[in-house]
């Protein structure tokens, strides 16, 4: 008998195998898959575990990812102060390009540009702003949406996009703010987030009008 055959013949002691089928199914049937859950926007529960969830918070019903944005649907309406995340300091387009380390998608018209580290925000007009940052996988921004918030899969010039309509909380590190309607899309190594008083069609139109060679 060869050594390989002998090894196969040893018969190692292993614990009795548990039947996990019922518990797996119970967990799958709570957050049901929806048709809009496309492969590009799959739930990455492994990555989700990077974020510790306080025990007291409502059970999370679903985790979605697009670009570097993670969206969690919760059973209760989240609460926070309305407004944008800290915009940082006002900068020139040149400075914004240096800070972002991505090819910025530049709107045709904008009122001001702000940079907070690598997070660049174009203020398009009052209550409409476009955040751009490097990252297309690891969650950098986190959103919590309540049961009343609509999430739609859409696209911006062929790139996967998500439309979040209704109040939701956005987190970046310890910062949290209440956001309104948001369009999020991703292209190569960047994530884009357009927020403000826009309908879905208007948001997609603005997104498609941005000028940049790769987006």
């Amino acid at each position: 008998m060869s050594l390989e055959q002998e090894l196969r013949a040893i018969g190692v002691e292993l614990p009795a195998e548990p039947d996990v089928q019922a518990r797996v199914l119970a967990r799958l049937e709570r957050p049901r898959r929806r048709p809009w859950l496309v492969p590009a926007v799959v739930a990455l529960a492994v990555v989700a575990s990077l974020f510790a969830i306080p025990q007291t918070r409502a059970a999370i019903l679903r985790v979605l990812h697009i670009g570097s944005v993670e969206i969690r649907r919760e059973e209760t309406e989240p609460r926070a102060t309305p407004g944008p995340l800290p915009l940082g300091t006002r900068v020139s387009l040149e400075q914004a390009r240096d800070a972002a380390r991505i090819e910025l998608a530049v709107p045709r018209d904008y009122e001001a540009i702000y940079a907070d580290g690598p997070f660049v925000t174009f203020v398009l007009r009052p209550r409409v702003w476009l955040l751009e940052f490097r990252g297309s996988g690891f969650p950098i921004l986190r959103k919590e949406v309540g049961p009343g918030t609509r999430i739609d899969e859409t696209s911006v010039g062929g790139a996967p996009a998500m439309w979040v309509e209704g109040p939701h909380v956005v987190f970046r590190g310890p910062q949290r703010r209440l956001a309104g309607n948001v369009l999020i899309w991703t292209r190569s190594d960047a994530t884009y987030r357009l927020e403000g008083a826009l309908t879905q069609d208007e948001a997609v139109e603005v997104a498609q009008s941005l000028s940049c060679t790769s987006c």
Partner: protein
Amino acid sequence: MVDRPLDESDLIERAKRGDTSAYAALVRAHQGLAFRTAYVIAGNASDAEEATQDGFVNAYRALGRFRRGAPFRPWLLRIVANEARNRRRSAGRRDALALRAASEDRPGDAVPSPEAALLSEERRTELLAAVNRLREEERLVVACRFFLGLTEDETAAALDVRLGTVKSRQSRALAHLREEVEP
């Protein structure tokens, strides 16, 4: 053929469309091996059980990325084994799992082996002791290949290393074992 039982790729396609009963059949078919693999990596039964459960839940949610026609077992084992590694890492365990020979009077706990009767008790003990003295990375390859019966591809997926690494670790492990246990 009307009565043909659903094969695995049918079950996967149905599960992708949200059919949880099809996925249940896949869980049933693979949970034993998934648990054994998780056990060898995590080093204890309770972590292995959690890793198996979480692995199946994560795999279901990632089915959209599963390439049609690809082998399911290595894909699944990679996910479950990754969960097992995370648990072991977060528990900060460094000590390796010491493998023991199944005792003859408890065949239910053993990996069944048709050749078992051919090996003397003394030889089993000697071989297993030598396996337990191997370096962790080599012992894991031996455990996956010979104790769990995984293919080289499945071993590579479970240990998250390249196929070439599995082959080289296996040949190093066998060479070490030959030095130790062969007359």
